[in-house]
């Protein structure tokens, strides 16, 4: 098996609000019969509108879906290639660079944390690693004792990337990493992601609602609608020659693609 990750018939149900505790009842699945594989070194884009289940899927792959709602029901299989330790080798980059960094921790504490829990590095080794990674993502080491609120959105997202990269992961799940950023910063972050992906030989699941961004960065793309995969394939094929009705509508809605014949 050459694929790093294989997902089979994944279904995720959230308990219905009104009876979360007393008698749990599940409604329509948020992720419905989703199956796909992630190959080594590829970028897999997942596109869909808000509420289509793409973020839920990301959390389920990383295994953190039950943190905020312990009553979520997950069925199906998520299989990593042998030798992949999900906690260390799979890291997630969050959408909102403002809420995903602890406001009371310094940069050093934030970036160091994954090392503390996943490695047995000494203090000196950790510090070396931190300054390496800071340099890589374009942050000055002089800022190690600064707090997140001293940084702009783009810089915070760099911190988030540094935190994700520090354990030398094999898979990065980027959940809308640029959608909260200013236009002029978006390109910087996309370039950075592309750069580190090549350098660390990472595989990436790139989740976004912005089709042109996904088109630029990913090799393959999955289009999700109401929890289901409606279309998937090579990026240029799906966007150049969409088959499903929803994909067509999605593409025709993007202002950049205006005038494109379908």
């Amino acid at each position, binding site marked *: 098996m050459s694929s790093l990750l294989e997902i089979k018939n994944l279904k995720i149900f959230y308990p219905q609000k009104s009876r979360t505790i007393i008698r749990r009842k599940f409604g329509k699945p948020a992720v419905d019969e989703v199956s796909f594989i992630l190959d080594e070194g590829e970028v897999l884009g997942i596109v869909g*509108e*808000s509420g289509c289940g793409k973020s839920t899927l990301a959390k389920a792959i990383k295994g953190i879906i039950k943190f905020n709602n312990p009553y979520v029901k997950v069925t199906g299989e998520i299989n990593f290639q042998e030798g992949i330790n999900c906690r260390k080798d799979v890291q997630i980059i969050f959408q909102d660079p403002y809420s995903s960094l602890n406001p009371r921790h310094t940069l050093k504490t934030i970036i160091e944390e994954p090392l503390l829990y996943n490695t047995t590095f000494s203090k000196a080794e950790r510090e070396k690693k931190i300054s390496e990674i800071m340099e890589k993502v374009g942050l000055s080491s002089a800022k190690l004792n600064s707090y997140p609120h001293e940084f*702009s*959105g*783009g*810089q915070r997202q760099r911190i988030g990337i540094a935190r994700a990269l520090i354990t030398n992961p094999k898979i990065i799940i980027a959940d809308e990493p640029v959608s909260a950023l*200013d*236009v*002029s*910063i*978006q*390109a*910087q972050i*996309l*370039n950075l992601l*592309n*750069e580190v992906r090549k350098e660390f030989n990472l595989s990436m699941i790139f989740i976004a*609602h*912005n*089709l*042109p*961004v996904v*088109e*630029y*960065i990913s090799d393959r793309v999955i289009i999700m609608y109401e929890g289901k995969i409606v279309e998937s394939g090579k990026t240029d094929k799906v966007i150049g020659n969409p088959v499903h009705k929803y994909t067509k*509508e*999605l593409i*025709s*809605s*993007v*202002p*950049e*693609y*205006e005038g494109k014949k379908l």
Partner: protein
Amino acid sequence: MKMNKMLEVKNLSVHFKDEKSNSLKAVDDLNFHLNKNEILGIVGESGSGKTLTAYSILGLLPDDAKIVSGNIIYKDTDLLRLRKNELIKYRGKEISMILQDPMISLNPVMKAGEQISEAIAAHSILSEKEIKQKSIELLNKVGIPEPEKRYNSYPFSLSGGMCQRIMIAIAIANNPSILIADEPTTSLDVTIQASILKLLKEIKDERNEFSMILITHNLAIVKQICDRVIVMYGGKVQEESVTRELFESPKHPYTMGLIESVPFGKDKSKPLPQIQGNVPDLSSMPAGCKFSDRCPKVFAKCKEEPAIKEIEENKFVRCHLY
């Protein structure tokens, strides 16, 4: 030419006070005008002052922001010199506004239709029945199915796109001459965004003597529906041009950078062209040209503040290169 102007903003400056009560120039000596029957796009990133400009026009500035100088001329009246009770006659009647997040702009405990009726009642003397009739017509106009039924719906039972349509209905309820839309589609899904933009365009096309200001950070939207564009950075107009020309031959290095850095249609094997650095805080804007610390074409003269120049007809750029 003069007759053609709907709204003119002259030398507008809006300042903020920070913790140490230094004045931060959020909008700095801003000049622009809005022609009749056009959609004017104001493009800028966070902190460029675009939203504050819109709020100044309607007198809706937050408490810590202050208009230091300037005139906003609408039909020979300076809106900034009006008293509060006089401005109310304009707000909603002559000039109305759509905000970014429809879910929080609507009153959650009031029926959607009643919020439209309320807007009509504020500026007319129609009977209750007529007002309701008119509200339902408006709901129909903004493309809400089953308007009679939806009149009695509460905002939480409607989707984001529906709520934005209701906001639009409220905004056009009194046949305003100017509609200001502040990031009207940013919080909506792409497919909904497309339909809302289409609706705005329709509304503009079927009216006479009606103009729209569309504030956004999304260049693609501007390209799609605006006639003329203003690019703002650091509280100042950096470039002003007809939309097509702006995209075909951008002049200001900032505009070029913005247009270039959009990933659409770019070669995957190469890095995206990018603008270096970050949008500076208002307190740490560089002296001289505001963009000078990030500009790839910066040279010695950029330490001085460039003036805005008309380099071609109706094409204005604030840059020492021209």
